[in-house]
């Protein structure tokens, strides 16, 4: 197992129980132009380092979590 995720409901669990939801992004305002929405939809920071990301505990409590993970070392850090 490459790393474990601290689920506030279920404890430290295997990442294979989760569905990865991608990096956390700030959506543009509804009145923003098409370019801003395309940037939001298709373009990613794709961080090689610590990033905040979404994980869905599909085989557990079925809630969405925000996790800070180092994408190079898989180290999970507290905020």
């Amino acid at each position, binding site marked *: *197992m*490459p790393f474990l995720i601290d689920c506030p409901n279920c404890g430290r669990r295997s*990442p*294979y129980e989760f*569905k*990865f939801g*991608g*990096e956390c992004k700030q959506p543009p305002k509804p009145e923003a132009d*098409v*370019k801003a929405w*395309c*940037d939001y*939809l*298709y*373009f*990613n*920071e*794709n*961080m*090689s380092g610590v990033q905040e*990301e979404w994980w869905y505990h599909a085989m557990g409590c079925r809630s969405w979590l925000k996790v800070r993970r180092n*994408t*190079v*070392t*898989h180290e999970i850090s507290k905020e």
Partner: protein
Amino acid sequence: MLTTQPVLRYKQPERHYDVIIIGGGLHGLAAAYNLARYHHVKRIAVLERRYIGFGGSGRNTEMVRSNKRAHETLPFYKESLEMWDGLSAELEWNLLVQKKGLIALAHSDGELAAMRMLSDSQRRAGIKIDMLSPGEIKKMVPSLDVSDRTALPIFGAQFHPEGGTVHHDAALWGYAKAAARWGVDICAGVEVTGFNIEGGKVTGVRTTAGNIAAGKVHVAVGGYSSEIARMLGVKFPVVTIPMQVMTTEVMAPFLDYYVASPRLHWYTQQTLKGDLILGGQLDPWQSWNSNTTWQECSERVAFILEYFPDLAHVRVVRSWSGLCDCTGDSAPVMGPSGIEGLSLDIAWGYYGFKSTPACGKYAAEYIATGKVPEKIKHFGLDRFYNRQRVREIII
């Protein structure tokens, strides 16, 4: 007495070049070779931060094929597949090109129908494709279980006779040697740390070996493209996901074809050496870590054993993983970057190896002429803003 000459000598970069190529993988070396040989660019440097072939070029599963879907990309992949044939002679280096044929299995009627439609798109682009019945598959691959015993029985398959394998290290050294012969400086251990941009035009790169001025800069860094994006202060439409590959111990030849299951995400082939290469699934999360996991290994092995039950005693001896920078539409990004003099050849995901020859050709053409060639005009970064994303499939 036997003397051994090194195949290639790395060079220290000079202070000025006409073209700098970032990334000493297959795409970078192919672009450098084509620029030097066909566009007569004199001073070219390939900057590689580790050693040539460290990334995806040496980590892929050596598959070459053109059975993709989108009408924008099919002529490109077709040309690339044809270019492999003449490449050994051109580079004066045996690339071990073996067009053994690729069998893609269908596990349901619906999948077979989708495969027929896919085949029609491919035939329309001039690619040879046949459909196979389970009986025909059994004759070609006797060790494959086509009975109803399996979890998802085989309903048929698509046969792509021109698909096959090319030895990736041979291809890499072939391109590197040929590029060096045509005067390209291949500099390993030189990491690019930033760009010098003046008035919207790139004038050079900052590296661990000092500043290097350049007329043009070409980015061919494979899975590491977003690190370049951060130096430029932009974002690319990619997510980096590793793909894991395994090999088994060496066996007597028994598998003549590349066999794949797009539905269950596995493929396997027996190399010339005799070991099986197993792979086919991207990791389930974004990562820049190239460790391999037991979960991935056991899942691929379980799926493959379901269809090759005779392999039950065979051991997996080695596994590795490589980074793929995947776009949402499974098509690459090639051409202008929005900064004058800086061209891109990124986002190749897990389909970069087979596209190397055509990629080198058209990247070089774009760098030399400044005009986007017809065959890569659909690969531009602007497609994400103009609602012209490529309708490609993930296989």
